[in-house]
């Protein structure tokens, strides 16, 4: 009688322990395995990120295995097409009696030995950019110019590790192109004040004022 | 039907007994009521303005309430130290002390629950925790285990003494076959409540200060020192204020329990200190903060060093049998131990767990007046409940309260 009771109690204890130790998430060994297994059956979601582009006009590009959208550039340049002004030779435009357009551009990009205006611009074909080897590149594909030197950044950008994504995370993918973030004439980011300060800092500065 | 009648008369008699007493008793109860009201007032402010009136913050998100909760679970668990020999080993010495111990456990448990409720951000939705009506995240959350074991222990500690007192009240002898299984169960249960409470902290990989295997055993050792120490003090008070006879032998036996537990506790403390400071890692920073301070932040230093020195002094004195048997020395040591462990298992355990924060931020914690008010109020409530329980129990045991059959 007693033994039966003991066994019963033990069985109950065992059941509780067993139930407690069971983990419902034991399907996969790690997050990596889970991603791998579950993405095998992946099919496109029905959502599209196009609604979040707002007014940004995009063009589709294909680089290697990656096909994605980038903002159209020519429409954003204030005085395109360039040849509307650049009808005369540069020397003449630089003379004093002509109206100035973008005379204040200061090239802060690599050193003078490496780059000057003619590295990217062709004085004879102002409407297009030109590569190091003298081939023509459309303003909309300006990234090709950057990619000549910045090959690792270019790789990252194609894959999506570099460059800001526009709209949403769902396909189609749209990313800013180089010149959307970097000024090609002065590509590095400037220092600035953060857009806000953290809580404790503000409290401390108030205390500082009180003293 | 007859039982209900007896029960009614018991309630009436006990109310009668608890509302009448000596002048000192009345002053004591009035004092407790006053403190409780102050506590309620503080709590009402907290209810109105939110927990921002406490010293807690996103950095140190548990404070005085949870500290006291942790400590009191230990006090409640300690009742077992008296239950075990009395009921199971039939040690006659403990028989009078055991009802007091269990009363203490009930009061401590109610205080525990009160502290947990006081710590809640939304006490009005606590029904979410009731199984059946709400959602009870069992067995994943250790907090649900704690709810089960605490309430179960409360039930055991109410029902066993109630059964015994109910029989005695009618002048009958309690049937050991009924209460001994309960007593055995409560012995196991007492270990469980403290171990589960330790697991509450021990299971958090985010907090290395808590996430160590010694936490549970150390909780038990310190509880079995602090709990019986409190019982000795309470017995001393009861002895001097009532006719309830408690032999010196009983007190000496409890003192032995306190001594052994305090010694084990010290050994574990040394082991912990060795691990933290012999080969300090990134995970020892909380201990560094606790014992030496970090970055000039030293709020806990006076507390923990007071606690450690009190603890060591008390343990050394208790170790000598001659000193231990001197009652006034014993009471002094018990007081030292109780306070030392309250600091160590409360403040000294909970607060450093949060310091430094997950990203190394050190924000110190100091309880506010409102928090202290609520805490003292809950302690007063515990004392109030215990006084009522003890007065009734002593009355019945002494035969002053007896069921009178109406003709």
């Amino acid at each position, binding site marked *: 009688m007693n033994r039966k009771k003991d066994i019963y109690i033990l069985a109950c204890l065992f059941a509780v322990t067993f139930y407690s130790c069971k983990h419902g*998430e034991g399907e996969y060994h*790690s*997050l990596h395995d*889970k*991603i791998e297994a*579950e993405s095998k059956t*992946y*099919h496109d*979601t029905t*959502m599209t*990120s196009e609604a979040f582009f707002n007014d940004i006009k995009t063009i589709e590009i294909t680089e290697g295995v990656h096909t994605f959208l980038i903002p159209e550039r020519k429409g954003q340049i204030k005085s395109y097409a360039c040849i509307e002004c650049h009808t005369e030779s540069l020397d003449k435009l630089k003379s004093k009696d002509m109206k100035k357009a973008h005379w204040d551009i200061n090239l802060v990009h690599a050193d003078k030995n490496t780059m000057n205006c003619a590295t990217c611009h062709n004085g004879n074909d102002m409407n297009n950019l030109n590569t190091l080897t003298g081939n023509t590149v459309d303003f909309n594909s300006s990234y090709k110019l950057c990619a000549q030197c910045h090959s690792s950044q270019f790789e*990252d950008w194609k*894959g*999506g*590790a*570099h460059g*800001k*994504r526009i709209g*949403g*995370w769902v396909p189609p993918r749209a990313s800013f192109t180089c010149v959307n*973030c970097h000024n090609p004439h002065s590509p590095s*980011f400037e220092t*600035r*004040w*953060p*857009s*806000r*300060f*953290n*809580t404790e*800092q*503000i409290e401390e500065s108030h205390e500082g004022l009180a003293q | 039907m007859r039982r209900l009648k007896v029960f009614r008369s018991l309630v009436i008699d006990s109310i009668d007994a608890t509302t009448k007493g000596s002048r000192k008793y009345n002053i004591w109860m009035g004092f407790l009521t006053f403190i409780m009201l102050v506590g*309620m*007032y503080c709590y*009402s*402010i907290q*209810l*109105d303005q*939110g*927990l*921002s009136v406490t010293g807690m913050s*996103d950095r140190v*998100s548990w404070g005085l309430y949870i500290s006291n909760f942790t400590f009191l679970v230990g006090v409640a668990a300690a009742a077992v130290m008296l239950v075990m020999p009395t009921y199971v080993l039939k040690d006659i010495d403990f028989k009078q002390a055991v009802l007091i111990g269990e009363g203490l456990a009930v009061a401590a448990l109610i205080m525990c629950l009160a502290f947990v409720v006081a710590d*809640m*951000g*939304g006490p*009005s*939705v606590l029904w*979410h925790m009731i199984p059946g009506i709400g*959602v*009870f995240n069992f067995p*994943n*959350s250790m*907090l649900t285990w704690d709810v089960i074991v605490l309430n179960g222990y409360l039930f055991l500690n109410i029902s066993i003494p109630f059964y015994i007192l109910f029989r005695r009240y009618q002048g009958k002898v309690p049937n050991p076959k009924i209460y001994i299984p309960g007593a055995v169960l409560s012995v196991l249960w007492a270990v469980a409540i403290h171990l589960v409470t330790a697991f509450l902290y021990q299971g*958090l990989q985010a907090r290395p200060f808590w996430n160590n295997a010694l936490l549970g055993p150390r909780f038990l050792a310190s509880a079995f020192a602090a709990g019986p120490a409190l019982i000795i003090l309470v017995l001393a008070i009861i002895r001097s204020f009532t006719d309830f006879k408690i032999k010196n032998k009983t007190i000496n036996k409890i003192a032995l329990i306190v001594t052994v537990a305090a010694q084990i506790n010290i050994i574990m403390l040394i082991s912990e200190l060795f691990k933290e400071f012999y080969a300090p890692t990134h995970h020892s*920073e909380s201990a560094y903060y606790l014992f030496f301070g970090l970055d000039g932040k030293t709020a806990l230093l006076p507390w923990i060093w007071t606690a450690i020195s009190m603890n060591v002094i008390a343990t050394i004195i208790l170790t000598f049998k001659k000193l231990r048997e001197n009652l006034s020395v014993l009471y002094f040591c018990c007081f030292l131990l109780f306070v030392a462990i309250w600091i160590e298992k409360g403040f000294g355990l909970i607060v450093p767990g*949060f310091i430094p924060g*997950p*990203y*190394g931020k050190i924000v110190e914690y100091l309880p506010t007046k409102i928090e202290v008010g609520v805490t003292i109020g809950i302690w007063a409530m515990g004392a109030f409940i215990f006084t009522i329980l003890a007065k009734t129990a002593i009355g019945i045991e002494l035969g002053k309260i007896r069921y009178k059959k109406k003709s």
Partner: protein
Amino acid sequence: MSDNKKWYSLDLNFKKKKETSGSCGCGKTSGGCGSHNNEMTDDAFLEAAVNASIGDEVRKDGFDQVFDVKMDRRSAFKKLTASLLIGAGAVSTSCSVVTGDDSKEKAQIDWEEQFKGNYKLMSDKEKKGTVERLMRSYELRTGKNISMTSENAKEDVLFGYAFNISKCQGYMDCVNACIEENNQDRNSQMQYIRIHEMKDGNGFKFDEADDNYYHEVPAEGHFYMGTQCFHCDNPPCVEVCPVQATWREDDGLVVIDYDWCVGCRYCMAACPYDGRRFNWSKPEVPEAEINKNQHYLGNRMRKKGVMEKCTFCVQRSRKGQNPACVEACPTGARIFGNLLDPNSTIRWVLENKKVFRLKEDLGTEPKFWYFMD
């Protein structure tokens, strides 16, 4: 007063008491006391009623001696009693025939909201119901409309996030955007995101990092690392919640039902990443600044005493949009996407860059990776 049947179902005998006691709780014995005024608003009535009941008690057991300051004592008990009466008040007002339709509806909504179940266990219909109630309640209270959804997780989606520590410059635009998007409490300056400024060459020493910097950024010789909720795949916070008020959705988001949370803060202690925030007092957002495009699990208004945290902007991400922090980041350091889509940019980052996660040894499996150029 006696025809004014405001307390139908739960008449607490206030009126009777008042008649017998002959004075009301406001302490004045002569006329002019608010509770004898017939044209009372509901709130005033409740207050007066509570006052009255307390007033009687005061006379009985002499709380006057306990608390000298009359107003304090009374307001304290008023609060205590009032909190107990919330439910009762809701019932009685909803049963009332006298009060206006609006307040009746308000009370009805409050009642249903107070006793609704856990969102996690709700059917789609119930989810819709509570969302509609919350929208209606907001309209009744402020006269303005919000749009709230209860959109469920999409199939074949598992959200992941990557953070480029070479790119982040510490501008804090993400923090600003997050606060505005998610209606975070302005008083306590709650922020989900922290940007840690670290010294080059020191490694990841968070304890020496500064998340309170006050100078132009990027500072010379420093790099920046953002932390927020990492939406662990094995979240310790979810395990410890005693009431399952927080859970991991099928698309990997770790979310909280603000209405189900009891405020025990166990999850906060369990989170190794400082991902959770608690509303220590009532969160406040100026009406004009409230983002009215809300999700039940996301940026809807919280209340005092509950947890909240980053949800990867569930109100945006479930529609296909990027979270506010990703959209606001001027450097493109933040990358968000679907881990299950083999062609997604986040997958490319994970497969082609050297990525790592914080405190990986804890086994929490965060879905938030860091990488460098």
